[in-house]
């Protein structure tokens, strides 16, 4: 059974990494980065390439670019997803990666994993129409649909464990200090 389960996750390497990084704060301290450049209107282009980890500079295989804009009903040109949709993308991909990793570790073969995410928001907040309404999501709903060689409780446990170990889930469910600095050119 163990030999036949293959979700494409190298769990051994992940467990080895944890072993190597336990009690090694220098190597375990990662910094993730994104650069963003205003294009026009509410359209911006962000890029991701370098990051820091294992005590030195690291790099993706290539640079990835992300256009963010707003739909036409917000009087914008719709050159990309909205920033809040990127947040949903981040949560979805983080939880899905977690499901695959946990499944591999628990020797459960996945056949398909699909997730639908909905972030509900009262836009009176961002429009400044009502001071009592928060800007962000008032809630996020994630619905997973999973086909795997396991019973319903075991599949639910995969998703539960994935949430427990998810970075984006933690970022969204717990407060994070944000420091913003500005320089004039």
């Amino acid at each position, binding site marked *: 059974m163990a030999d036949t389960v293959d979700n494409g996750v190298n769990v051994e390497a992940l467990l080895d990494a944890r072993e190597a990084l336990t009690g090694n704060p220098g190597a375990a301290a990662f910094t993730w980065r994104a650069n963003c450049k205003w294009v026009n209107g509410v359209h911006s282009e962000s890029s991701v390439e370098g990051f820091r980890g294992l005590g030195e500079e690291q790099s993706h295989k290539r640079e990835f670019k992300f256009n963010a804009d707003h739909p036409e009903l917000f009087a914008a040109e719709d050159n990309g997803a909205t920033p809040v949709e990127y947040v949903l993308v981040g949560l979805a991909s983080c939880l899905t990666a977690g499901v695959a990793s946990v499944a591999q570790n628990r020797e459960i073969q996945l056949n398909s994993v699909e997730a639908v995410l909905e972030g509900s928001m009262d836009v009176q907040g961002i429009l400044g129409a009502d001071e009592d309404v928060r800007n962000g999501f008032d809630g996020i709903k994630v619905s997973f649909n999973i086909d795997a060689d396991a019973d319903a409780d075991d599949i*639910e446990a995969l998703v539960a464990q994935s949430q*427990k170990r998810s970075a984006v889930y*933690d970022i*969204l*469910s*717990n*407060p994070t200090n944000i420091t913003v600095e500005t320089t004039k050119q």
Partner: protein
Amino acid sequence: MSQCLSSRNIDHVVLERGEVGNSWNNDRWDSLTLLTPNWATQLPGYDYKGDDPDGYMTTHEVGRYFQDYARVINAPVQTETNVTSVCSQNDQYRIETSAGEYTANTVVLASGICNLAAVPPFAEELPASIVQMNTRDYRNPEQLPKGGVLVVGASASGLQLADEIHKSGRPVTLSVGEHVRLPRTYRGHDIYYWLDKIGRLDVRYDELTDDELRRGRGLPSPQLAGTQQHATLNLNELTAQGVKLVGRISAIRGHELLFSGGLKNLCNLADLKMKRLAKTIDEWIIENNEDAIVSDLNYVPTRVDNDPALSLDLKNGDIRSVVWATGFRPDYSWLNVDVLDRKGKLTHDGGIVTSPGLYAMGLSLMRRQKSTFIYGATEDAMDVSAHLAVYLGQTTPTEMER
């Protein structure tokens, strides 16, 4: 341990900072009882002899039990002797106490793992207008001001305290982190009857992977209480009384307490684990043809609001006090031997501490799952004293039991 040492004719002294059973008699809240039934309260040659094997001892009964045992085995206890320092000196240990100094070839650390309250560092950021208390100081609800109480922590202590504080007329909000949900009874028996039967409590530390051991040693105490009614105490029981649930406390910002939005998942994780345990027990019953009543789990998933509060404003007066039921940790401030890891935990292999001649008892999952239970001490003490005897040169290693 003293009994095992005596039976091996190893000269020893038991140093006790107060009276025998001191922590049980003085450092616990009034209503606390053991979480394990009386049949599990036994020590070498000293079984439970009362008429209620399924009942749960009060802390004072436990204290008395230890005092009686000390007398029965003639333990060389030196009471009112507080150890202030243990350090290595040549190949021995020097022990400084409030009643003089000792030198010993071996030292067994049996001072417990519940000496200090483990309170999160941001507790000190609470406004001074809020009364705060931890599980070491708490005795009963009357110590708290009238009005709302935030209880932080949802293991055995948090649930028990939330229950009695809410019943005292002080509305409780309970901050729930990771927890272990267990039914008090299952299929006609106490849950510990089954954990014992299926061999869970006998699982040895060296049968587990490093991962399982680390996780097992860090587990919070299960959501249980020892009442005469053998009642199950869980989050659903509390919310039915009107207790409000919020997520794990994550920060204090000025007069605002912030809670995680991950409450539902933690409850779901605990529900799934409890269901898995029930299934394991069911399978064991079938395999062993055990005569047991049909499943009576009455399983109801933990009810959590769709939108539990993410923050609490301390300015509006709804919360007057905070009780930190966030666990305990051992006090090793007097241990001047380099045997603590970066997290302040004792480095040991099944109670054999990394400094030769130094041993431990009563640590979480030290040699077995039941190492922290009173009856778990029996086998651990036999194993550890066997190693100690070899170290003292009394026996050859071949005589050693594994």
